[in-house]
């Protein structure tokens, strides 16, 4: 069980200011604000397990060899590489470690899967099919190929974020060389019906690539059960290190390398392997496989407690994606808080020790809302107030209760500053979450005052 530095709940004001007397000087330096720290962004990173860190250590110093070398130093790390491949293969139910390829991270794995399969099968056809809510690493790889003459069909999802299987079936043509559908959505936690998706692809005889970045280590993955040709995941999502990505590729699936150089990874990925990260990632995968039921048993009740607490304490808040249960990964909550914007919520959470993410346009460098929120048809006003919380095994009930109380205060503070809240209270605009029938829509109002429709 991973423990973050958690401190007893103290009387922290909205600004995070705290009387110095409540800081235990023997434990913490006086300059440190003694507030509870709650990490609720496990979708972005997890702390490396101490035993994983220890397993990595000798590969930085003592066993520093390059796996391409033919001497003792190289052969020793080759052995470690093989063991890590076996650990990764076991996590996804692969037959052999020879089907495991190491990359630098999830984005590179997605690039290799999409571009590698597209280039390898160019003569067969130049059409791809992806779900509309895939991760940007998949979407951007596809957009890159579209500029080079490939075409792609984006399959729609339900308002809950579940892929429309009939649309998927209809999208596949004789020219389709790859279907990409993620296991779990990175934003809204929707678990896709992989067995059904696999059946559709098998019936059409098109290889299926499944991005498991948001699910690996937290949900069982079975490449054979799904009939997946490729699956990718990254250990930093399950208490392993950053700097390594994994691509499972069935022997029958054809891909070519997108990085050129040496013949590492069976010629599918040139470049020196990151041995310490691979060794650590392998152990993290083995531990994740063993602890998976405990991890779920730990986070699932916290997810329910957090959502129940928030929906009780915060008016005009909604959950995006499926309700907690079989259709939603037990780590994720994707929330829309009406009448306020997401970045302000994120910043005030951070200043109160709570780390969260947001899909609002204000947090994106492109000033666009998350395309996932667009694909599920979320009202722009709600997409603007988006917050994503992802739980991990270090979180406790006390953490969740602190988050509920603090978040309610943050929302009240930001609503006090928001002209939209005031206008809602005066009946000028209406709520999307709980319409009163008074006033115009937020989007209409935003368009009126900006002179242009909001995107």
């Amino acid at each position, binding site marked *: 069980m991973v423990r973050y530095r958690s401190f007893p709940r103290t009387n922290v004001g909205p600004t995070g200011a705290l009387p110095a007397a409540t800081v235990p000087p023997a434990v913490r330096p006086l300059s440190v604000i003694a507030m509870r720290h709650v990490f609720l962004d496990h979708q972005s990173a997890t702390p490396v397990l101490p035993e994983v860190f220890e397993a990595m250590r000798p590969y930085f110093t003592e066993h520093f060899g390059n796996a391409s070398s033919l001497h003792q130093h190289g052969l020793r790390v080759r052995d470690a590489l093989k063991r890590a491949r076996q650990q990764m293969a076991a996590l996804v139910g692969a037959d052999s470690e020879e089907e495991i390829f190491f990359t630098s991270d999830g984005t590179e794995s997605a690039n290799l899967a999409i571009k590698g399969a597209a280039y390898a099968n160019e003569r067969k056809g130049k059409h791809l099919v992806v779900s509309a809510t895939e991760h940007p690493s998949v979407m951007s790889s596809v957009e890159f190929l579209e500029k080079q003459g490939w075409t792609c069909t984006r399959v729609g999802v339900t308002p809950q974020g579940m892929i429309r299987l009939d649309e998927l079936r209809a999208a596949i043509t004789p020219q389709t060389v790859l279907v990409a559908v993620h296991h779990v959505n990175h934003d809204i936690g929707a678990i896709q019906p992989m067995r059904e998706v696999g059946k559709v692809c098998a019936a059409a005889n098109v290889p299926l690539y499944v991005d498991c970045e948001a699910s690996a280590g937290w949900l069982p993955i079975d490449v054979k059960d799904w009939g997946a040709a490729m699956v990718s995941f990254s250990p930093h999502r399950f208490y392993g290190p950053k700097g390594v990505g994994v691509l499972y590729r069935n022997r029958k699936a054809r891909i070519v390398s997108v990085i050129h150089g040496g013949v590492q990874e069976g010629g599918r990925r040139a470049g020196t392997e990151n041995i310490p990260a691979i060794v650590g990632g392998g152990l993290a995968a083995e531990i994740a496989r063993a602890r998976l039921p405990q991890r779920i048993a730990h986070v699932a009740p916290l997810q329910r407690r957090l959502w129940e607490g928030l929906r009780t304490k915060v008016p005009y808040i909604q959950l995006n994606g499926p309700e907690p249960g079989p259709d939603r990964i037990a780590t994720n909550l994707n929330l829309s808080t009406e009448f306020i914007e997401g970045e*302000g919520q994120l910043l005030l959470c951070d200043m109160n020790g709570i780390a969260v993410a947001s899909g609002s346009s204000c947090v994106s460098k492109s000033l666009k809302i998350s395309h996932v929120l667009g694909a599920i048809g979320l009202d722009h006003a709600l997409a603007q107030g988006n917050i994503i919380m992802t739980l991990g095994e270090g979180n406790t009930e006390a953490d969740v209760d602190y988050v509920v109380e603090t978040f309610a205060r943050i929302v009240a503070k930001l609503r006090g500053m928001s*002209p939209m809240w005031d206008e809602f209270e005066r009946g000028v605009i209406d709520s999307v979450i709980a319409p009163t029938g008074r006033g115009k829509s937020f989007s209409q109002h935003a368009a009126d005052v*900006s002179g242009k429709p*909001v995107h």
Partner: protein
Amino acid sequence: MSETYTLYNSTVMEHFMNPRNMGDLKDADGVGEVGAAACGDIMKISLKIKDGRIEDARFKTFGCGSAIASSSMATELIKGRTIDEAMAFSNQEVVDALGGLPPVKIHCSVLAEEALKAALEDYVKRHPDAAAKSTAGAPVPA
């Protein structure tokens, strides 16, 4: 965590955490509400104007940290200015007073300038006589 890192500089964070002049003005002489089509932020500035001078200013903002800080700073800067001076107000003043904003957030300061000018425009519309007395005369750019 042994120290606190912040997304924006300390001045921006301070104005975001403790905004100045937040709220509405009862019996405001001019109110401007504008939205940014680019990001969806909305800003509202209310002004109390006496003898051609901005006596008081308040803001309300739906937007990110830098939008809230920009409106807080803008209301601080314009208090005491004449209508003419306020009409010449530029977003760059807000950026400079805040010690800089990330390039992607400059539009937040533009929104503050637009909200201020919309409020002045509203004032001129509602008080044509008082506005005529100001040295700039009546015409206010749209």
